[in-house]
Every structure is written in structure tokens, then in C-alpha cells.
């Protein structure tokens, strides 16, 4: 379907309601020692987290790690058991703050007796948008996600990708300050995913804060500024993407064509050398820098064409991090009282 294949455009996203621009460093989401128990199951075990204004923040974890529970607590859909959580300087559970929050749930199910237009009108009314604002925003949002041509068709006729686009439209409809997206690219084709990425960057430029849950680590790597990895209800790793994916002490070196890499001499410097396609991967020992290797190559009259510190993919990092932690995510855990 055309609407499914080509959709999300750079469009009329307004500035935030407060009219302010992005001010990184101002926290918009804060949790402290957040605990959620479902009977004897401990879904969240003392999660402390801060998300700043203007960030695109990724929450990663295996199934059952507690990602969706965390988002639902922030939105008041699920109640926290212990600890504290604030959203836009308001303790969670106060429904008034939800006018400033957008949300796309995972596996959402829109009432299929609506059309895209009537659904946005319905949700817009519940979000306290004026009639004039709704009339203006509905076509704009549907055009933005490539559904304007189908806006008067029943949702039951939409493909999964179209429903996902509609989900994004309803999350952005009321120009929220913070947007929670639970698997936003689920069911969307590669072109659509690229468009969603562009849209999210556009929102970030406007100072919106975006909180993403996703299994698609490649997507998260391309979109997010900062991530948290959760395992069995606990944060096991967090930081900005660049820092986390950097592999300290490993470099990739490439020489000019037809020049031989002096593998033995570099090995004698104490480095671990392995071929990596047309390049060579040089691993340094603790405390060593890459400078002696570069000096050696220059001394041999070799032309250095490529030198970069090796990074690992987010997927590598995720798997490495998760495997290092305890395996098994859905086992019941005896509940413990907070300290």
C-alpha cells in the first residue's frame, strides 16, 4: 500500500507548549529506588534513573526485564510499590500531567470502528485539545505519518505498519513535551523506519524528550543519545551510546595499497595483531598508547591511510552485558522490602 510504503515526512511539528527550546541537563523524568511487585514477582528492583530534557533515551532489555512496567508506572497505568517517580516535576499518578505526555504502547489496539481522523479527534478531546486545535492538527499529523489519504477509512482496513504510524500520530497529536514510544518501529518497513528516525531527530531538535523501548538495537543505536540496559528489573548498564560502544585499547589500522603491514615488529612492541579484512586490528596492553605503533609505521616509510579506535555495535554491547548478568528473566523472585 502506498501509504504504508512512503509515509512519515518532515512536517509541521510545533515547538513545545512552553515555547522553550531544548535545555539539555534539565531533568524531566526522575525515579528513585523504584520498586514494583506483582504478588511474589519483583518486576522492578529499585530503579533509579534520570532523563533530561531534549534527550532521546533508550531503555533496553530482554523480554520481562521490566521496561514496559517502567513506562506504565511513569504514565500512571501501573502503580509503583515503593520508591518515588516524578514526571515533568509532578509525582506520577497525577493525571493532569498527561496532557504534556505522548504515549505509543507496545501491541496497541485502537478501537477499529474509528477512522484515523475520528480516533485522533476522540483522543484529542480526551487530551483537552480545543476543537480548533484538533481540526488543525489532525490532517497535519496524518500527513506527517503518511496517512492523510486514508484518514476517513476504518482502522480495521489498515495494515500493521499503518496502525503503527497512526500510533505515532496520536502520540504527537497534542504536541507533548515528553514522548514514550514502546517499540515504535514494530511492524514498520525499512523505509518507514528511516522516516521515523528522521522524525524523532526533528522532534529532538524542537526540544522534545523521547523515551524509547525497543528490541531493534540497530535502530536505538542510530536514534538514542543515551541508553539504559535492564535485566530482571535492575539497571545493569547505562551511559551515552558513544562511550558505551567504544572498545578501549583496540584500533583499526589501514596502509596504502601494496604496502605490507609489519606484523612481527608491531607484535614485538607488545601489541596483539590480527587481520581484519583489508585492515589490521591492533590490541594494546594496559597503559600502552597507539603512538609507538604509529611511529614505527612512519619510520618504515609506510603510508597510514586509516586509523580509528574500534567500536563495538550496540548489539554486541547488549549481548555481552546481558550474558554477563544472570540469565533467565521470567523466574519468580521472592519479594524483598526496600532498604
Amino acid at each position, binding site marked *: 500500500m502506498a501509504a504504508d510504503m512512503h509515509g512519515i515526512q518532515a512536517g509541521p511539528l510545533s515547538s513545545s507548549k512552553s515555547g522553550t527550546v531544548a535545555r539539555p541537563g534539565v531533568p524531566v523524568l526522575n525515579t528513585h529506588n523504584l520498586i514494583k511487585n*506483582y504478588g511474589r514477582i519483583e518486576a522492578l528492583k529499585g530503579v533509579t534513573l534520570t532523563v533530561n530534557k531534549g534527550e532521546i533515551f533508550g531503555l533496553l532489555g530482554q523480554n520481562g526485564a521490566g521496561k514496559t512496567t517502567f513506562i*506504565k508506572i511513569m*504514565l*500512571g*497505568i*501501573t*502503580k509503583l510499590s515503593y520508591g518515588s517517580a516524578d514526571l515533568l516535576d509532578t509525582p506520577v499518578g497525577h*493525571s*493532569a*500531567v*498527561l*496532557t504534556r*505526555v505522548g*504515549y505509543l*504502547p*507496545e*501491541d*496497541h*489496539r*485502537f*478501537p477499529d*470502528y*474509528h477512522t484515523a481522523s*475520528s480516533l485522533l*479527534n*476522540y*483522543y484529542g*478531546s*480526551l*487530551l*483537552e485539545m*480545543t476543537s480548533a486545535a484538533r481540526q488543525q492538527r489532525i490532517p497535519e499529523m496524518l500527513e506527517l505519518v503518511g496517512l492523510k489519504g486514508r484518514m476517513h477509512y476504518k482502522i480495521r482496513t489498515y495494515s500493521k505498519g499503518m496502525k503503527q504510524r497512526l500510533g505515532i500520530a*496520536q502520540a504527537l497529536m497534542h504536541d507533548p513535551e515528553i514522548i514514550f514510544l514502546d517499540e515504535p518501529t514494530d511492524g514498520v518497513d525499512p523505509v518507514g523506519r528511516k522516516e521515523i528516525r528522521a522524525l524523532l531527530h526533528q522532534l529532538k531538535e524542537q526540544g522534545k524528550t523521547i523515551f524509547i523501548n525497543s528490541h531493534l538495537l540497530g535502530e536505538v543505536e542510530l536514534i538514542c543519545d543515551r541508553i539504559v540496559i535492564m535485566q530482571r528489573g535492575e539497571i545493569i548498564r547505562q551511559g551515552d551510546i558513544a562511550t558505551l560502544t567504544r572498545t578501549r585499547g583496540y584500533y583499526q589500522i589501514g596502509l596504502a595499497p601494496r604496502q605490507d603491514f609489519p606484523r612481527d615488529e608491531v607484535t614485538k612492541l607488545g601489541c596483539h595483531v590480527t587481520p581484519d579484512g583489508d585492515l589490521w586490528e591492533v590490541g594494546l596492553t594496559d597503559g600502552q598508547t597507539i603512538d609507538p605503533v604509529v611511529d614505527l609505521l612512519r619510520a618504515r616509510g609506510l603510508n597510514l591511510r586509516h586509523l580509528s579506535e574500534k567500536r563495538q555495535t550496540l548489539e554486541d554491547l547488549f549481548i555481552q552485558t546481558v550474558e554477563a548478568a544472570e540469565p533467565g528473566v521470567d523466574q519468580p523472585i521472592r519479594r524483598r522490602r526496600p532498604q
Partner: protein
Amino acid sequence: MHTITQYFLKFVAIMKDSLQETLDSKVLYAMVALSGLVILGAASIGFEPKSPEKGIESILRRLPGAQGNPLVAQEPPLRYELQDFKQTNENKPWESDFHFTIVVHEKPIEGGGPGDNPIAGKGIFRFMVYVVSATQTDEDEMTDQEREARERFHQFQRDAMHRQMDKVNKFVQDVVTNPNAVTAVQMERFIANQLAAQGTLVTKSVKFAPTAQDELRFEVQTQPRAETFRTWPHKMTVGFGAYTWDQEGPIGNEVFFIENFIIGGFGAGIAMLVASVVTSFYIPNMLRKGTVDLLLAKPIPRWLLLVFKYIGGLLFMLLNTVVVVVGIWLVFGLRSGLWGPGFLMTIAVLTFQFAIFYAVSTFTGVTTRSPIVCILAACFAWAVLFVVGWGYRATDGVRDIDLLPKWVVTSVDTAHFMLPRYKDLDVLGDTFTAQSLLGPDSPERKALDKSYAKLGWLQTVGVTLAYIALFLGASCWWFASKDY
């Protein structure tokens, strides 16, 4: 925007959503089409007034004892013959004064009395007067003799139920053979009361004037009342005159029968069932995973969201009822000339009754999220309230004669007191309809007025509202406190 305005706009949005959900199910269209057919059927019913003499004859055929039992081909024990009929002015029949004579003929019935006791020939009319005077005279109009007669009659009923045939036979013999059991004045009053009850006629004079021994002859002069039209006999045709109804009854009773029993009883039952089925999907659909998250992430308190959704369900029933009731009321008003605005109260009564079942359905919906369980719960509630309501009505009907064991009466009274007053609300609707259709002194109207007077409306509405609030409150609490 002001908070109240915001909530009102959210309410409107949820109502529109409920309407879209209903329209999408196509059931509303089917209901409206069905309602249209019912209204068309009602519009095809015509009413033709009887002439003055035929009209009075028809009224006399409704007097006590003049109707046999068609099921067993039993002829009536009494026949009231009209003689010397005169219309003393030229108005419409129901606006005219009449002068006529009634001659009562008694038909011998062999072994027709209680306990095979023959109430043969003479005395049946006297027996009828005795019974009717004892049971149908208003309490404040009763003489001491009539009160005693009433007590003797109640004892007679108890004896008949307990098959104490000696006592039964003695009572019948006393009344039938004792010429002083009923006086001429009582018989005259009986005639006057029955003409008022069956014909809404004011009897200016009635005189017991036998010309021969044992003859039962009454000379009567009547004048009409404003409500006489309601009881004036009409011939009813169906299918725009294609079929003529055998029975010729008071127009008010004919319209009342159709509006109250066919529409307000049978039709309302179907509407209630359909509404229960359709609306049983509202709450579970709203609570589906993936749908409820989207709603709960909106700035509206959960309890209010549920209450608004509940009101949306009530709207379905209200819309259906408005279409049918107003439609029927209009066509009957136009076709018969008898406008009974009391029937419009049926809209409120049916919606209020449905509110009970929908509150049960809502509670079941939030706790189980299953439409099927919602339907079963609503139907179960309906069955319980129906049985308790009828049980209470039945025990109340024989309360004066101590026919049932005390524990049965106490159990039924307790269940009736504790539960929502579904059948009492029926009485409310029936009474409003009857007040604008039936003759003020007709037995049907008096029976309804009697039931109505017995019920404490504050209590009936209060207990029912309390139940609705209880179920809705429990639903809101559950919905508000649960994690989704």
C-alpha cells in the same frame, strides 16, 4: 478551560465514541428497523366507535358475571339485557345522556358452584353483588355490614383453598338463599358502580323496579364524564382495516393493552435483552490490552472514564426506547384520538430498569473482561429480580387471607426489601400509562392504583439507586485500583 467544561467535553467525546461503537455493530440499525416495523404495525391499527345503544350493550356485557369462560365453552351465569334505551341529547355517544332499563337474567348452572354446590338460577346475581360489594368497594366507602361481608368472603376463600367444603357450602347457601343477604339499595349501588367502572358513566338515578316476582329490573339514567371516551367501546381493526378484532372493548383498555403489555412488557423485554448483549461488549472492549493503555494515558480519572462509559451504555437503551415509545405514542394518539402522555414515562422507567442490569454487567466487565460473562450476569440478575418481583406480587395478593405459610411470606418480603425493585418500577410505569388511558373507576385502574399506593416510591427508587451506586462504585474502585 474550566475543569467542568473540560470534563463535559470529555463526556461528549466518550458518548460519541460509544455511539460509534454501537453504530459499527449495526445492531442499532436493526433495532431501529425493527422499531419502525412495530410502529408501522401500530399505525395499521384502527378504532371505530360503537353506536350509543350498541355501546351501552357492550358495557353491560362487561359487568360481573356476564362473561363466561371461553376456554371451557362455559356460558356466563348472568346476562344484562338492555331495554327501553333512549339517548336524551344529540352529542357523540361518549358525551350523551342515556335513559334505559337493565333486566338481569340468571342462567341456571348445575354444579357450577364451589364444591359442586349448585348455584342454580335465583340468587347468582345476589351472590355477585355480595362478593363484588365486599371486595371492590373502597375502604372508606364501606359500611360495617360490607366489612363483615368482606371478612366472611375472605374466610370463604380460605375454606375453599383448604377444601373445607361444609363451610364453603354453608356460606354459599347463606348468601344465595337468604333474601336479606343483599338489599335493594346494595343492588342499585352495584349497578351504579359497575356502570361507572366499565363505562365511566355517572348514574343520575337507578331504581330497582321489578314488575314480576323475582325479576331483577333496574331503571337507569346516566350522564357522561370527561373520561367517558376512554371506556367507550370501540371496534378494533388491524392491518389498515384488513382484519377486524372479535372483541369490542373500551378504547382506553385496547390502547393500554398494546402499549403496556405488548410494547412495555414483551417489547421492552426484547429491547432489554438486546441492549444487555450489545452493551456487554463496551467495558471488556475498553479494557482490552493495548486499548486500555491508550485511554489510561489520558488526563481523565479512571472512575470518571468508567462512569462516562456506563452512561454511554444507558444511552443505547434510551435511544431505542425513545424511538419505540414516542413512535407508538404518536401513532396511537393520531389513530385513536386518545393521547395518553403517561406512556412516555415508560422511557424513564425502562432506562432506569436497564441501569440496574447494566451496573451488574459493568461490574462483571471490569472484573472478568468477558462479554459472555457480562451477558450471563445481567440475565441472571434479571431472572432473580423478575422472580422475586412476581413472587412478592403474588404473596401480596393473598396477604389478607393468610393463604401462604408465614415463612414463605417473610422470605419473599425480605428478598423484595433487600433487592432492587425491578417489578415495582413496572408498576410505576403501568400506573402512569393507566392514569391517562383507563377509566378512573375501572377495575384494572383500581388494581394498579392499589399496588401503586402500597409502594413507597422513595424507598423503591432509593433502594434501586443504592444498588446501582453499589455496583458502579465497586466497578470504579476495581478499575481505579488495578494495574493494567
